[in-house]
């Protein structure tokens, strides 16, 4: 049976190549069907018969979208019949139709988010319920059959909900065309790990189904290669150390644990941003422009900025569909207006902001997984962002008194390092095998830290030798240089494509050879499972 567990496999490349060939040889109308067929084939290869969840979700939003649209049209038609003078009547009519739309949306959210909650969080809920029952001394245990969760459900559910909210807010029109909506929901490169697209981002590009262009093919191919490099050379190589230290943290001192937290942060970034390179590159081949999910997050000066640069589409989803709707709700708006008058411009909106931010970070933590360490991860960032806002005026005063220029490069560098350390701490808890393990590991960094480990050969215990560390160092520096150039506004892929064709291909071959020679595969290496596909 065709089975794909990762983008970094021969099977994925074969499926992508086959999709390109069939897509190209068919005429426009058929190309759309070819794309949908390959999308469902890919999903089937990843999740088997669970593809039915994706199809049901698509059918559901197609129907609910049209339902909303019909209610909106009916409301407009009835309002148009009323004269200008009938203001009260119009208001009452609008309110009644708005109520109807809200009922439909409540039903839709319960259906889609409820399905996600049921499939993903039931075992976590049952586990905690059993712990609570045992705590009270009752010996009863709830037993649960294994629930199969379709890969990518956390991603496509958010896409579905965003689509319906956009129809409800009349930002977009409900799509009556089931094929176009199915393509938007199921487009195969992005179905497993995002990016979380809005209907207005991709539906039109997918529907156009343009012929494959040479420049798109080359640019997409470049991006895929770069993603492979990040994953196979770096993320998989680091896996040896990370797997061992997180599972046997009792055997290691604080230095190794701190190093492991840094390595895991690098691994997570290389794995997820590398996957995004493969995904966005694959889509580019078909002329589909997916939104970027990473904007060089390790140049962030605050945690708040970090989350505007890391997993961007998840952050904007939470901002648009949770943070602003909550903070703009009537009770919180009233709170803001009152608090502003008493507490001023800075602290006034903080109260409403904190309530909305708390909800965002609970959702963010839980979205990543059903576990207390994920909830802690969310709360950790909530506290850091809130603290950042609370102490900002004091921090400005302190730096002014110390004559530190906040826009100076050394101060910015200090902020970047501080943010990176905080991110690494958060990721330590995120990856730890349970919350207790996370705390024990964190404690060891402060109570059992010694540089002696650098010399006693511990670092070569994980199956990694000196060459591995050199390759990691060189690759990280290489990616850092590329990131600095991008941060300065340079478009590296564009500048490569302007070069002589011989130079262009020399660069591609060099990158391919780099991956083949320095890739961490075979031997001791165990490739890391696609981390975000599990969410």
């Amino acid at each position, binding site marked *: 049976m065709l089975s794909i567990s990762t983008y970094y496999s021969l099977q994925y490349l074969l499926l992508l190549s086959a999709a390109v060939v069939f897509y190209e040889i068919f005429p426009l109308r058929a190309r759309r069907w070819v794309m949908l067929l390959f999308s469902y084939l890919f999903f089937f290869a990843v999740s088997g018969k669970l593809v039915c969840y994706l199809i049901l979700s698509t059918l559901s939003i197609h129907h609910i979208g049209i339902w909303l649209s019909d209610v909106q049209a009916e409301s407009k038609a009835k309002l148009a019949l009323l004269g200008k003078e009938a203001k009260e009547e119009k208001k009452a009519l609008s309110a009644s139709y708005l109520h109807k739309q809200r009922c439909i949306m409540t039903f839709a959210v319960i259906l889609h988010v409820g399905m996600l909650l049921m499939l993903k969080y039931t075992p976590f809920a049952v586990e905690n319920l059993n712990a609570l029952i045992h705590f009270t001394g009752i010996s009863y245990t709830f037993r649960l059959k294994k629930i199969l969760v379709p890969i990518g459900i956390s991603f496509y559910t958010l896409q579905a909900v965003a689509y319906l909210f956009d129809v409800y807010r009349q*930002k977009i029109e409900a799509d009556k065309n089931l094929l176009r909506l199915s393509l938007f929901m199921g487009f195969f490169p992005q179905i497993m790990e995002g990016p979380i697209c809005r209907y207005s981002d991709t539906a039109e590009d997918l529907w156009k189904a343009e012929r494959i262009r040479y420049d798109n093919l080359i640019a997409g191919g470049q991006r895929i290669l770069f993603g492979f490099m990040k994953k196979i050379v770096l993320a998989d190589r680091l896996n040896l150390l990370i797997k061992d230290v997180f599972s046997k943290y009792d055997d290691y001192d604080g230095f190794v644990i701190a190093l492991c937290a840094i390595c895991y942060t690098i691994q997570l970034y290389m794995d997820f941003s590398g996957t995004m390179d493969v995904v966005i590159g694959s889509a580019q081949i078909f002329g589909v422009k997916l939104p970027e999910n990473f904007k060089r997050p390790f140049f962030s000066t605050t945690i708040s900025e970090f989350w505007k640069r890391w997993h961007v589409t998840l952050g904007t989803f939470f901002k648009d569909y949770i943070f602003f709707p909550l903070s*703009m709700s009537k009770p919180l708006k009233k709170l803001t207006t009152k608090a502003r008058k008493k507490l001023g411009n800075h602290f006034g909106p903080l109260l409403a902001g904190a309530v909305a931010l708390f909800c965002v970070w609970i959702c963010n933590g839980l979205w990543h997984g059903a576990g207390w360490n994920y909830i802690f991860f969310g709360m950790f960032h909530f506290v850091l962002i809130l603290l950042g806002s609370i102490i900002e005026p004091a921090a400005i005063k302190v730096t002014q008194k110390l004559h530190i220029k906040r826009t100076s490069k050394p101060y910015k560098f200090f902020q970047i390092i501080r943010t990176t350390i905080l991110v690494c701490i958060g990721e330590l808890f995120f990856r730890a095998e349970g919350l207790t393990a996370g705390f024990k590991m964190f404690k060891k960094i402060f109570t059992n830290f010694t540089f002696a480990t650098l010399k006693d050969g511990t670092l070569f215990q994980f199956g990694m030798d000196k060459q591995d560390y050199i390759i990691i160092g060189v690759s990280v520096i290489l990616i850092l240089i590329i990131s600095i150039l991008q941060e300065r506004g340079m478009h590296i892929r564009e500048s490569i494509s302007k070069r002589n064709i011989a130079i262009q291909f020399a660069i591609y071959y060099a990158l391919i050879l780099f991956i083949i020679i320095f890739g961490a595969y075979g031997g001791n290496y165990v490739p890391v499972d696609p981390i975000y596909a599990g969410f």
Partner: protein
Amino acid sequence: MDERLIEILEDIQPEVDYLTCTTLIDDHYLNSLAIISLVAELEEEYDITIPTVEIIPENFNSAENMWKMIQRLQEEG
């Protein structure tokens, strides 16, 4: 452009040239908390309701765009 709007903006976030700046959101002059404050203030001042769908960078990147949005919402009643 309405002078009162500029006053509100300067009250919320001073030291920005609101007559010329067109990247208030893109360049982080106004953060999410400032937007919460601003929306509450604009609704009270101009007797409008700003729905969540209007809270997009395009509407808040410049004072001019904000003014256009306010006028539009006033017309829509």
